[in-house]
């Protein structure tokens, strides 16, 4: 008799919780659920006597909190977290998993929410969960820790202070791929904020294990591993050298050929983060053939995946002229030119322009290599285009300036004479004024191609640098030729005809 009453009640609770959990999976239901006051109803169910109901309630809560910031805030304001944290330490593994899921869902939205979780003392219990026997619990806990650490350096520091790093490093060594993946991602999130945090991760011996996992066939794991390595390497030369010392080098290059886009992107990012520190590290990458691999990678993918590769080429070329020459020899310029003209997004164009500028700024030889690829008019057009972003304009201008100041390849400079604005024209004319006095053939070509005429048409302010350059060019030619090509010559001739008194 009584038994039946209780049974009914329990069955109803179970049904309710399960229905809510089921409904919470669909985003369109969530608002209705919230309006129906589901939070207040779920909260007592978290303390239910039946574990099954507890778990399902936690799961429903997690799904709700996962949906948006407001619901996550509602979870925090409803004082649900302390209950969760308390039972996280006590209950069985299924409940632990569900509770960690709620924490993760709350922490994901904003630093404040993550801080609220830290304030509840969840970190310690999560770290205890990392010691759990069940891989599922470990996975959920490391996921939650990763989401907490993701936001800022203080939260990461809190995670580190809770002693999570050694356990995360242990988790990387587990056989379960999902756990490894999430532990690697958590390590990446921790180490991305500051050199000190990255150093803690390195001190826990993460690099060796991460480096081993590059061989893993699982693409998602590879993504996280490469991301973690790049987050470690990005901070300082020492850390980058430690990453390099883990003998990642020929192996990472194979990741650039992976079928997964994100693996490619993260591998390129890793190489970029290493290359940007010193010329020596760049040299190492060049010697390992990394530049060629990156260039191939740029060639075979699209969009944002290209970006780290493009920037890596720029960093390598910026270090020294020999490295820039190596980059040129690896046939980087055609690829960059393709990126510059094909990519629809401005920031990728800007990166390509920057890289080209870095390659071409060293010597006339370098500038010539860039100019021959017919990059200058493209750069100029982006600089002039009104719809291109400000950053792109700045980058293209700098690149043009860098290249033009070294360029002595006149045929590629000539088109710029016709449509460059004065601040670019200054450099173009300056290069002509440097080359023409010493090169008779070029002087002849300059006249026949109409360059001289164009130069005469330029209206420069007296005493400006541009005027000086123009004067230098004019001095290379006989006066009557200069006058012949100056724009008012025909009028002047006609005037002379008018003023002429015929001799009879």
């Amino acid at each position, binding site marked *: 008799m009584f038994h039946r009453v209780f049974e009914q009640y329990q069955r109803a609770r179970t049904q309710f919780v399960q229905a809510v959990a*089921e409904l919470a999976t669909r985003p369109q239901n969530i608002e209705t659920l919230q309006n129906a006051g589901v939070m207040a109803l779920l909260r007592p169910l978290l303390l239910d006597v039946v574990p*099954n109901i507890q778990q399902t309630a936690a799961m429903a809560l997690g799904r709700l909190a996962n949906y948006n910031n407001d619901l996550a805030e509602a979870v925090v304001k409803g004082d649900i977290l302390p209950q969760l944290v308390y039972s996280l330490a006590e209950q069985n593994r299924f409940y632990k998993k569900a509770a960690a899921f709620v924490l993760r869902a709350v922490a994901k939205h904003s630093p404040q929410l993550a801080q609220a979780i830290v304030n509840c003392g969840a970190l310690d219990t999560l770290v205890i969960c990392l010691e759990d026997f069940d891989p599922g619990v470990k996975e959920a806990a490391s996921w939650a820790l990763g989401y907490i650490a993701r936001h800022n350096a203080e939260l990461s520091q809190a995670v580190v202070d809770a002693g999570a790093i050694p356990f995360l490093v242990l988790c990387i060594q587990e056989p379960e791929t999902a756990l490894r993946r999430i532990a690697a991602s958590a390590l990446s999130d921790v180490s991305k904020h500051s050199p000190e945090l990255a150093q803690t991760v390195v001190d826990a011996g993460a690099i060796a294990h991460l480096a081993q996992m590059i061989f893993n066939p699982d693409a998602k794991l590879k993504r996280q591993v490469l991301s973690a390595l790049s987050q470690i390497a990005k901070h300082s030369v020492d850390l980058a050298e430690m990453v390099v010392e883990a003998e990642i080098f020929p192996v990472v290059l194979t990741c650039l050929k992976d079928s997964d886009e994100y693996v490619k992107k993260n591998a390129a990012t890793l190489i970029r983060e290493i290359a940007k520190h010193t010329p020596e590290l760049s040299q190492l990458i060049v010697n390992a053939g990394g530049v060629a691999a990156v260039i191939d990678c740029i060639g075979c993918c699209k969009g944002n995946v290209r970006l780290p590769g493009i920037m890596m080429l720029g960093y390598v070329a910026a270090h020294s002229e020999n490295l820039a020459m190596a980059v040129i020899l690896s046939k980087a310029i055609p690829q960059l030119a393709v990126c510059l003209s094909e990519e629809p997004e401005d920031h990728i164009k800007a990166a390509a322009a920057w890289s080209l500028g870095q390659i071409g700024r060293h010597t006339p030889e370098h500038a010539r290599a860039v100019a021959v690829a017919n990059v200058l008019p493209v750069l100029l057009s982006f600089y002039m285009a009104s719809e291109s972003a400000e950053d792109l304009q700045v980058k293209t201008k700098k690149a043009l300036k860098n290249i033009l100041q070294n360029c002595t390849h006149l045929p590629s400079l000539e088109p710029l004479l016709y449509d460059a604005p004065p601040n670019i024209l200054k450099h173009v004319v300056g290069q002509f004024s440097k080359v023409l006095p010493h090169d008779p053939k070029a002087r002849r070509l300059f006249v026949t191609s109409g360059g001289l005429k164009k130069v005469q048409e330029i209206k420069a302010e007296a005493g400006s640098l541009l005027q000086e350059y123009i004067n230098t060019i004019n001095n290379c030619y006989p006066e009557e030729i200069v006058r012949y090509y100056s724009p008012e010559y025909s009028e002047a001739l006609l005037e002379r005809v008018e003023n002429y008194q015929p001799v009879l």
Partner: protein
Amino acid sequence: MLPRKSRGARRKLGATIRSFGSQGGRRKTKQHRLFFPRRFTPFVRPSGLYFLSSPSAFTQFETTLSHIFHTHTNTPPCVVWYSPVAMATACTPSREAGWEGARMVTLARLQERLPGLKEDYFHRNRYVDQYRKSEYNAAVKIQSWLRGCKVRAYIRYLNKMMVFIQKWWRGYQARKIFRKMAETAYFIMKMNFYNEMAVRIQKRWRGYYVRKYIHNYYALKRYLEAIALNNEMIRKELEEFAEMKEKEEAKKALEREERKKDYLARKMHYLLSTEQIAGIYNSPYRKSPDPMELQLRKVKPLKEKKKQIPKELHWQACIDDSFGFQRVPALPPIQRQKPQGPFRDPAEVQQQRYKPFEEFLKVAASEASLKLAREKLKQEEWRNRVHDNVFLPFSGHEPDTYVPSMQRASKYGQSSYGLKHFREEHPEKWIGKKLSVSPSSSPEKTVGDFQEIYAEICKEKMLEVLLLFS
């Protein structure tokens, strides 16, 4: 003191000589100005006046002056003052004539001359008085002139000396500075030269060094060539790697496809043609049967599918499921607009529609509930038993051998009390033949248990039914 020189030389040195004015033996120079010899101690006292008492004294003074100014420089300067008494004394005869006689004669002569002398003396005094004033004035004038000359000469002299000293001092100083300047200029010139040479050496050396070790063109060229080669190799290797990967992928995809096809064939095995009737894949109008037909022939038909446990439950499967966990259908949508017309509330309709089937308990209770209960009990027993050697309670179970404790062992032997016997037994005095019975469970007991359980269940059900009907 300059040495004597020839006339020409002396003329050249005239200025010097004149300025010194101390040339020995050159008394009569042509110069008119007065000069004081070097060692001449000035004899003019600032307030001194020289009294000249007579015209002869005046002349005498003149000679004295000339004497002073033209005397040899070595003679110490002196001024002689001629007083009348001294002059009288000078006129006295010498002592050679003998003191007595001479004195008398002289006296007589003097007395003879006395009246005239008096007159003369008077005249002379008058004469002196008459000219005293003008003489005095003249003397003052001369003295003032002379002194002025002397002071001016002295100042000029000092000036000359000063110029001389300054000239030499300045010359000395300027020469010193000049020497220093020349030295510095020379040093600078030398340094410039050395620097220039050093630059030349360094230039050569650095050019050589840089060309040899730093910007070795040939090494650079070789390096770049090597890089190009290396790049080619890496590209090729990566290409191979990618190809390999692609092949693997393709193989996997093929396998997947194969499996899918296989599954499909098994599923549609009923489309296989028989001896009599051709299946749809084995059209008689075709030359050869469809590959699907061949596939169908190869595979076995799919067996009846077992009911699968929903995937979501996989980790919930081991939860304590005491009340029979039952999945419920999805709840009806909460807020829906009520349709226009004489319809019931949609929620009500939904509820009606999704209402789970309720059965009578009589129907709900399975026929095999007894069997199930038995099964359950068996399972329970099986689950609870961890070990085949069941741990039996102490009563009725004696250990095989007795191991004496150390405390109880003694050299005097053991008493049998407690081991062999606890108390004295006298079985012969027993009335009945009583033997100990082992408490093992009999199979009848179990059956009885089940019957009891069954009866209880029935009673319960009856009660429920009664309640329902009442």
